[in-house]
C-alpha cells in the first residue's frame, strides 16, 4: 500500500536528530507497549504482517504526528479489538475510570 509510511526519497523532513547515550526506552509506557505487543502476538491475535498493515493504514496526518510506540499502540489496540480480546467500549470505560481515579489522587 502506498502511503506516507513509504518515506524513501521524500524531502523536507530536516536534519536527523540524534541523542547521545540514548536509553532503550524513553518512558515506562513505551516499555509496556513493547511488551504488550508480544502478549497479543503470543495470544494468536495477530501476526507481524497484520501488525505492519495496521500501522500503514493509519491516516497520514496521525502517522506523522505520533511517535513510533504510539504507532504500535494504535495497531495493538485495533488488532486486539478485531480479534475479540477486548472491546472498544471496555477500553473507553477503563480509560475514563483511570482518569477519574487520577484526578482524586492526592499529590
Amino acid at each position, binding site marked *: 500500500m502506498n502511503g506516507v509510511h513509504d518515506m524513501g526519497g521524500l524531502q523536507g523532513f530536516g536534519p536527523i536528530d540524534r541523542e547521545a547515550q540514548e536509553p532503550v526506552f524513553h518512558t515506562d509506557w513505551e516499555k509496556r507497549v513493547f511488551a504488550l505487543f508480544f502478549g497479543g502476538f503470543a495470544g494468536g491475535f495477530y501476526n507481524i504482517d497484520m501488525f505492519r498493515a495496521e500501522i500503514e493504514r493509519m491516516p497520514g496526518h496521525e502517522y506523522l504526528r505520533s511517535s513510533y510506540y504510539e504507532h504500535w*499502540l494504535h495497531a495493538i489496540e485495533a488488532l486486539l479489538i478485531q480479534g475479540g480480546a477486548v472491546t472498544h467500549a471496555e477500553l473507553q470505560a477503563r480509560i475514563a475510570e483511570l*482518569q477519574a481515579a487520577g484526578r482524586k489522587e492526592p499529590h
Partner: protein
Amino acid sequence: MTSLPTADTAMSHDHDHAHGHDAPLPEVVLRVKALEELLTEKGLVDSAALDAIVDTYEKKIGPRNGAQVVARAWTDPAYKARLLADGSKAIAELGYSGVQGEDMVVVENTASVHNMVVCTLCSCYPWPTLGLPPVWYKSAPYRSRAVIDPRGVLKEFGVDVPADKEVRVWDSNAELRYFVLPERPAGSEGLSEAELIELVTRDSMIGTGLPKPVGAAA
C-alpha cells in the same frame, strides 16, 4: 523548526512533565494502562512476563552481540566466509537468533565500498545482533533521506566517504534485515578478539559510523 515535528522526538520529553502537581496523565499513558489492566484481568497477559520481556531488551540484547559477530569475522577467515555466505546461520552459531533477526544478510565494507542500512518503510532492524533501534533510525528524516542523499547523511554522522568510494544503501524490510561488516581498523592486527569487540560501535554495523580507531577503546 523547519522540519515536520516527528513525534518520536517530541514525545520523548512528555514524561518529564507528566508528574507535576495536578497534571493529568497523558492520554497515551491511560490507554496503555487500561489495555494492560484489561488483558491481565482476562488472563491474556501476565505482568511479570511483560517485565521479563522489557528486561531482556533493556539489558541482554544489544549491539555488543553484533560486535562479537564482527570481531569473530575479523579474526577467523572461515567464519567470515560463512557469515557473508549465510548471515542468519553464521550469526546463529554465536547464539544470536530470534525475533526480527530470522533472515540476515551481511554486507561487507571494503576499501572500495561503504554500505549503510535503512528501513524506509518503518524500522526493520536486526534485534538479536543490535538490540532495538535508536529513535533516529525510526525517524522520518533518516528514512526519507538515506536513499536519496546517503553521502549527505553520512556527513551528518561524521563519516566522510571519499568520492571514489562507492556507497551502497540497503533497504531492510520485515523479511530480510541487513547488517554491515565494517572494515577492520588499521593497526589492529595484534589485537585479540576481546580487544577488537571494544572497537565495534553500533553505528559501524548500521553503516552510519566507523569502528573506533585503535587506541581509542578503553
